């Protein structure tokens, strides 16, 4: 069953067209990777799925709801089921790690402070972040910031998680940790859309891969199809990125 369906998606900024007639869908429990070089607009698609950018035309359906005409208030209910993991964590720098994680729970649940503390502590332990609850984001390493960002995004148990370059700028060890966390969430049944230009991460965690170039999807298919496709552009991209 499709949980995300994007049809005839067009997006431009001023006179620059970023996307023309982009079509794809994501099934429940599936992880779709959006791959492409820098500047092809991968993040624009991801941001449009949660209303941080607006499509110029076309349709975006999330969980059977057409979201392109939603206002900010209507997006609130979508944003409770669709989480966004930002490339650089986007942690609130005036709040501690604990307060960053507690923020969605305080805003959207009626949990008591003890229950919030318990939930945050459990999540910190799941993400190997024990002992960092009182630290400020500026005191964390890049890898830790990404993990806190991921933990904050999934604390409300969303149906869909959107990852924007989750492994960009990380060393191999932290890349593996993030990949394992994404796989763990996938096993728990959450649907994911992962934007990356890191082919290894895409090959390790995605079920299907969608290749973008020049504002269009030039290839979409399963991992096996993707690996065996002889499309010249794919080859070019692989050469370019490797």
């Amino acid at each position, binding site marked *: 069953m499709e949980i995300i369906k994007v049809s005839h998606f067009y997006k431009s900024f001023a006179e620059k067209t970023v996307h023309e007639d982009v079509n794809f869908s994501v099934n429940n429990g599936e992880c779709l990777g959006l791959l492409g070089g820098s500047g092809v607009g991968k993040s624009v698609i991801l941001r449009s799925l949660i209303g941080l950018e607006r499509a110029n035309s076309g349709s975006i359906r999330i969980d059977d709801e057409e979201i392109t005409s939603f206002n900010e208030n209507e997006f609130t209910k979508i944003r409770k089921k669709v989480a966004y993991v930002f490339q650089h964590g986007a942690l609130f720098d005036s709040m501690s790690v604990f307060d960053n994680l507690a923020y969605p729970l305080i*805003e959207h649940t009626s949990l008591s402070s003890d229950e919030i503390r318990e939930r945050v502590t459990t999540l910190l332990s799941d993400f190997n972040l024990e002992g960092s609850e009182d630290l400020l984001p500026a005191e964390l390493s890049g890898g830790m910031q990404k993990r806190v960002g991921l933990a904050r995004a999934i604390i409300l148990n969303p149906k869909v998680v959107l990852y924007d370059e989750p492994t960009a700028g990380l060393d191999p060890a932290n890349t593996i940790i993030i990949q394992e966390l994404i796989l763990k969430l996938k096993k728990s049944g959450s649907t994911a859309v992962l934007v990356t230009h890191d082919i290894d991460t895409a090959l390790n965690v995605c079920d299907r891969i969608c290749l973008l170039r020049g504002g269009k999807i030039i290839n979409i298919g399963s991992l096996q199809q993707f690996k065996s496709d002889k499309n010249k552009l794919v080859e070019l991209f692989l050469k370019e990125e490797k």
Partner: protein
Amino acid sequence: MKRKIINFLNFVGGIYTFSKQCLQEFAEHSVSRQLLIAQLQNVGVKSIPIVLIVSSSVGMVMALQFGIGLEKFSGKLYIPKVVTVSILRELGPIFAGLMFAARVGSGITSEVASMVVTQQIDAIRALGTSPIQKIVLPRILACLISLPILTVFANIIGIMSGLFVGSLDLGLPTSYYMQKIRTSIILADYLSGFGKTFFFALFVSIPACYLGLHTKRGTRGVGSATTTAVVAACTLILIGDYFLTKFFWIIESWK
């Protein structure tokens, strides 16, 4: 030139839409008390020293200048009234407003713009909350509460500084100065200046938040947004002061 006019009209239209949006959200949701208190501390309490320093300086300079000027016409006895009325009606609110624009307006814009650049504003939205509720309204309300209070402090310190110079440098007896302040100042002198501060608070906080939230071009944009916010706030305060003075003058003449 054409581009500058378009940018200016965009700014005016943007401020209008943004203010409407803020009013709507203010009417629909309550503002977090915790966030408001934090902003009162940032915006209000931390502005006390600079506002007091400036207002004491203004009070002393005013007394001295009027003292020198009026002495030529044997009008030294009018110094208490002239200085006090000037401070209450114009100089207290104006200087408090300008200092507030410089300190608070720049602070708000640079903070909010940095949050835009580091995607914290996007994160607030992505987590299903509103940046207007969480960031903008606490700051606007804190400005609306703080600036009138700061102006009261500025007025008191300004008048006391005038008294200090009047009695120490100009040889006016303290008791005479105090008596003149009590007898020659009417409530309208005080209210017309005090009333302006609510408008000044809006002139500082709304453009500051708007420009911060609409920052573009990364960290370079933070600097230019901050400069624009301070220039816009100071200009609005100074130009707005004329119309507000006229507005309060009309109200006074109705009585």
